[in-house]
């Protein structure tokens, strides 16, 4: 994290007159930005002119939403701040979904938007939109800069706010006249944020209370969310789980924070989580939540969540504590610092009975699928990808069944390995996310495990991947349905599949038309080979896996039920 007031000496000389646009570019570079995403337009022309020969790798998406998701995934994969630019009006409006997505998943992002000339604001000028008004609820902070003298400071503040505390997107709106006004930046840029304070250290007494509770607990569970990944605290998490001997369950966004191949991993909890995680949470006597926010997809019926447990909640955001579930021992601060402290104050306990019980649940209710079926099971495709990538690929996902199967059947072993839209559940995230992740991690295998209808939403970005020669893989689990919606309709609406399927294109042909490699796999015996071919491809590659159309995700906690009241366990057991 950068310290608020440290400003590197200005290499361009202290007293040169610069335009607002040049100030923006220089400040981006001073912030260490070497990659950004965005789309041009009338009022950002001055900025794009300054970007023409700036030392920044600039990726133009086919749609601003795609660009925003790319910047988001770039941030998630790299741990750096993602940057996206858009023009006023339609450009800014197209960012809204992407900003909301980053907001819900606490992703550090800086969005720069152009605005119409200051004197036209409020006149319904051409391509005017009240960008700060529209984006206020979907950003951690936003503002419009009407005076070029505030520009450098505001951009610096934007990066600081986006990347510290609970991270999130920050939008800065810059009217075009400000971008062309000359100004002499003198002296170091000083931030002024009297209302922005972050508690990182954690209250010493709260930490020792938590440590004592852990030491006393016979049936503890660590419940870990994306906050641990954001805090780069996976090492510290592993150390605590090892030192104190604690089982670990993760939220969708927490996956990767703890190596799922380790014995203490209970995998994902919640609506489509593992039975063993859900049972463990319901029966534990101490739940230690770290960087998680008790989302309703995790808690199920909130009044019966972890009914026997005292709850420790470690989070950087005080507002997350006791928001949905009352917490007994709150600890506000940075997960990295607090987990380190806890590991020092806790001791190893065998907890044989508890771990035996967990092992029993694991034995009885593993994630399973019907292996004997003649059709292609999506879970088989994912297991095959997991096997052939040795569990090491970066996975992005669409939203729906594909996402849940990816979370259930790919075993993640390190942070920033799964990049998925958790809080907002944005269909169409998978492909642009794969592009952003591949740009952040050029040497790694990046695979988008997508749904057909999710892919349909942003598939235009395949052209972006082709243009930048990104070797991303897109694995479409094509069931011809909005599968997750269909599953609900099957279970709760008497199989009335209302508007939950569309005519899909031939994805392999489409991929080829856009300059990518396109394959179709429609036989079970071709799956392994298909995955192999996909992984070997150097070009962007789309594989259309024609999966069993009415496969369901199990287990499932129906809405309003406690998380131990899972449907589908009988189905899973019958496959054993």
């Amino acid at each position, binding site marked *: 994290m950068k310290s608020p007031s440290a400003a590197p000496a200005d290499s361009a000389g202290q007293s040169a007159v610069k335009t607002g646009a040049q100030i923006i570019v220089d400040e981006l570079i001073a912030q260490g930005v070497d990659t950004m995403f965005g789309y041009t337009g009338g009022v950002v022309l001055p900025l794009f002119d300054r970007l023409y020969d700036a030392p920044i790798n600039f990726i133009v998406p086919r749609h601003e939403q795609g660009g925003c998701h790319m910047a988001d995934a770039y941030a998630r994969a790299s741990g750096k701040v993602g940057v996206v630019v858009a023009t006023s009006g339609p450009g800014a409006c197209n960012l809204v979904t992407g900003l909301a997505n980053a907001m819900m998943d606490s992703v550090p992002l800086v969005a720069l938007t152009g605005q119409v000339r200051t004197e036209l604001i409020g006149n319904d000028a051409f391509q005017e939109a009240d960008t*700060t*008004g529209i984006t*206020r*609820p979907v950003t*951690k*902070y*936003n*503002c*419009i800069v009407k005076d070029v003298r505030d520009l450098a400071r505001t951009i610096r503040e934007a990066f600081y*706010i986006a990347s510290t505390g609970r991270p999130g997107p920050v939008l800065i709106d810059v009217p075009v006249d400000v971008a062309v006004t000359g100004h002499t930046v003198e002296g170091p840029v000083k931030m002024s*944020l*009297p*209302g*922005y304070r972050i508690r990182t250290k954690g209250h010493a007494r709260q930490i020792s209370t938590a440590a004592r509770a852990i030491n006393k607990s016979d049936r503890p569970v660590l419940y870990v969310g994306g906050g641990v990944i954001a805090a780069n605290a996976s090492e510290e998490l592993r150390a605590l789980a090892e030192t104190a001997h604690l089982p670990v369950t993760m939220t969708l966004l927490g996956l990767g924070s703890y190596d799922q191949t380790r014995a203490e991993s209970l995998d994902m909890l919640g609506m489509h989580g593992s039975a063993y995680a859900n049972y463990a949470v319901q029966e534990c006597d101490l739940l230690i939540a770290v960087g998680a926010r008790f989302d309703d997809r995790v808690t199920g019926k909130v009044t019966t969540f972890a009914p026997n447990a005292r709850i420790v909640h470690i989070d950087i*955001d*005080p*507002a997350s*504590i*006791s*928001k949905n579930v*009352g917490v007994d021992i709150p600890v506000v601060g940075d997960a990295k610092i607090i987990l380190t402290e806890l590991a020092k104050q806790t001791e190893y306990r065998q907890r044989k009975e508890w771990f035996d019980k967990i092992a029993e649940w694991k034995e009885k209710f593993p994630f399973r699928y019907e292996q004997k079926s003649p059709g292609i099971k999506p879970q088989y495709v994912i297991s095959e990808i997991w096997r052939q990538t040795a569990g090491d690929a970066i996975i992005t996902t669409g939203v729906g069944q594909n996402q849940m199967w990816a979370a259930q059947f790919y075993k993640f072993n390190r942070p920033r390995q799964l990049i998925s839209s958790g809080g907002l559940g944005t269909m169409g995230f998978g492909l642009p996310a794969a592009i952003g992740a591949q740009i952040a991690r050029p040497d790694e295998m990046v695979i988008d495990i997508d749904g057909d209808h999710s892919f349909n939403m942003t598939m235009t970005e395949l052209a972006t991947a082709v243009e930048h020669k990104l070797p991303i893989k897109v694995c479409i689990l094509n069931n011809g349905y909005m599968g997750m919606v269909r599953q609900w309709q099957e279970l709760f609406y008497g199989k009335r599949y209302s508007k939950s399927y569309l005519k899909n294109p031939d994805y392999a042909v489409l991929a080829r038309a856009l300059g990518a490699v396109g394959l179709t796999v429609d036989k079970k015996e071709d799956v392994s080979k298909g995955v192999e071919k996909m992984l070997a491809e150097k070009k962007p590659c789309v594989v259309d896996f024609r999966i069993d159309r009415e496969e369901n995700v199990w287990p499932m906690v129906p809405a309003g039920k406690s998380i131990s009241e899972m449907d589908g366990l009988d189905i899973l057991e019958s496959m054993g």
Partner: protein
Amino acid sequence: MKHIISALVENKPGVLAHVAGMFAARAFNIDSLVVGRTEEPQLSRMTIVVIGDDRVVEQVRKQLARIVPVVKVQDFVGQPVVARDLMLISISAPPEKRAEIFSLIEIFRGKVVDIGPKTLMLEISGPESKIEAFINVCRPYGIKSLARTGTIAMPRQARVEP
């Protein structure tokens, strides 16, 4: 339960929208909200009256504190505070009733600020309960119009009302 929350905010455009938007987005109910300048030109004070149980109000407080230009948030619940509303109220006041009305104004320590042929405009300030009581005594005469500022408040140093 009623809580008076006082928030010191940066005096910047968009802050009120941010605060109001947060209340709407999180379905918190605002009873009243007052914004005014403070002794420091770059800071304003918002006094917000919220009704809710302690958990809800705790969330309100935390969510407010999370807004970047919000500098400081205090919940005055359980503390001795001086809380005041100001009201302008215009009532029908035919000549034969005026004497009676003037004596009411006296009791409530109000002021006549405008005299029309058939109406009187009165100014009254005080705790909300007093304002409410005054509205009630005015009702029989006929209230023409009424404007209230909403509550502003400050914690008390002395334990008893002087």
